């Protein structure tokens, strides 16, 4: 059982990080559907930088790339008031495609000195706690939540709605970038096209299931990690076909989180803010 808990945390970590990033933006009222693309490009940037200058540089490159891409989405979804869903989906597709194209020369090359997963796992846990404090104990957290719930009121009180949303996307992108770096530097220390394999979408779903609360995202991510591992640990020893087992993590996480309390989205989620309308 011990190894199952270890896997729960170590595989839950990239999902948790990406989920925290998406959660941060969504609390400010912006949906970031670009997670998968941001993770893919960050994973590539992290790997390329790590090959050139070590894993420390790799982590920085991953986080930096994620943050820049988060800000890039902000340009469209906040400043230009584009449809957030369309802009996010475009970013997801763009990131996946661009990473595949740019990453060709890194295919099939192993990373000589991978990053230990455990350190990043602890960092992710600390970041979740930090995000919780940020949301509920700081002035920025108050601004962020008010921008996500009622941007007009926040605007009347002198809060820069666009500014807060830009910052949330930027920081959230950084967290997604860290998730990407975790994949290519620690979890599977190499780069291949499409290595995010859908984890970004799981992270987006987890935000909703975690009711937009960082600490519940920890629970959800670890639970997903645990069940993902158990589908292989138990395959063959219980009379359930492997295909059905593969659906289990998704179904059970939905079930558990659905039963664990009401969920309510930030009221202004997905709605571009325009002053005076």
């Amino acid at each position, binding site marked *: 059982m011990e190894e199952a808990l270890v896997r729960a945390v170590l595989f839950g970590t990239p999902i948790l990080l990406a989920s925290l990033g998406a959660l941060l933006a969504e609390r400010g009222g912006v949906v970031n559907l670009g997670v998968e693309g941001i993770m893919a490009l960050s994973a590539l940037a992290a790997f390329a930088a790590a090959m050139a200058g070590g894993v420390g540089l790799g982590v920085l490159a991953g986080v930096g790339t994620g943050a820049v891409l988060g800000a890039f989405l902000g340009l469209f979804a906040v400043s230009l008031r584009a449809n957030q869903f369309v802009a996010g989906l475009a970013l997801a597709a763009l990131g996946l495609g661009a990473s595949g194209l740019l990453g*060709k020369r890194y295919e099939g090359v192993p990373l000589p000195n991978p990053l230990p997963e455990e350190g990043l796992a602890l960092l992710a846990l600390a970041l979740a706690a930090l995000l919780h404090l940020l949301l509920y104990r700081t002035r920025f957290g108050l601004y962020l939540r008010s921008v996500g719930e009622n941007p007009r009121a926040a605007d009347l009180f002198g809060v820069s709605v666009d500014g807060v949303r830009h910052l949330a996307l930027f920081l959230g992108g950084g967290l997604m970038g860290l998730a990407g770096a975790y994949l290519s530097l620690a979890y599977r220390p190499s780069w291949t096209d499409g290595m995010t394999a859908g984890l970004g979408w799981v992270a987006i779903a987890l935000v909703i299931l975690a009711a937009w609360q960082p600490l519940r995202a920890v629970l959800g991510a670890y639970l997903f990690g645990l069940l993902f591992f158990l589908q292989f640990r138990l395959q063959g020893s219980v009379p359930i*076909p492997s295909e059905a087992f593969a659906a289990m993590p998704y179904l059970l996480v939905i079930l558990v989180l659905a039963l664990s309390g009401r969920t309510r989205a930030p009221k202004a989620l997905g709605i571009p803010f325009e002053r005076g309308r």
Partner: protein
Amino acid sequence: MKRFWALAVLALGLALGQGDKLKACFIYVGPIGDAGWTYAHDLGRKKAEAALPWLETRYVESVPEAQALPVIDRFVREGCQVIFATSFGYMEGVLEGAKKYPNVIFAHATGVKRAPNVATYMADFYQVYYLNGLAAGALSKTGKIGYVAAFPIPEVKRHINAFTLGVRAVNPNAQVLVRWINAWYDPAKAREATEALLAQGADVFAFTEDTPTVIQTAAKKGAYSFGHYTPMLKFAPDHVVSGQIVHWDVIYIDFLKKVKEGVYTAKNLQNVDYFWLLQHKAVEMGADYGVPINPKHVTLLQKAQMTVGGKKVSVYDHILALVKDMSSPKPTFDPFTGPIRDRKGVVRIPAGKKATLEELLTMEWAAAGVVGDWPGEPK
């Protein structure tokens, strides 16, 4: 004016030269950078082009399996005379395209349906899996060997069975623990499946899926592994013992030469099926090209003993002897030679008989020693 004529002659020469070339075009299912299936086919294409001066090639990558026909249309418009379709799922598109363009020659990798202008081809690993199984059986201390497998289809089952027969030939009590990930490419699933097998005590690993994840994960815990499809030694230089490596170029060069010489035409391919093995040099046992066994593990395998025909021999010597035999024009050994019973005790290949090609291509049973879920297992 002199310059004009010189250029004109040059242009004419180039155009004529171009016209002499045979144009072969490839449809790839993945990106050529996938470090696996498509990468290997593209390597074969490049080697064929380098070896055959009269050959000109083109390719389109990442073609979804339902989109074969539009690509075929385009290739034919561009003057392709031979079209290679490199994924099983292109079957319907290829057969339709072959009807539409009866003068174009098609070859379909892993395909099972042929036509007068459609040949099929495959480079198969079952012999190599058996050889790797011998090494795995010798190296495992726990008697538990992990196998991460993509999909429960006959091709993968054949490979697991061959591997398990090899394992059991060295250690009759060993178990091969199989985990299906139901994906050709999913690093997370491959990783967690390997972790699950490690937790269950597996200390040697083989796999059939398209990433080096199993190797990297196993090496972290000091477990040995066998590469798949391309050389994977570099992913864990101390732990990759050997592996299966493909050489599609051998098939491509042979096929294209026969087209050029007029042996193959768009009318006589109905019975042309390549199922090429060690003896054709279409596959290789190796941790890397030309490295059948990682030198770091040679001593261990030399010390390990097994019984062959009532005599004790070193596992290393036996592997090399079998490689030599199966690489010769007339091999005497085949892994699927009876008597072989499945894990339920049913005789699948009677004593003295060798599995037919048909039996190999439709294999659903699980060899004795295989442990785990086995979808489609015959009663």
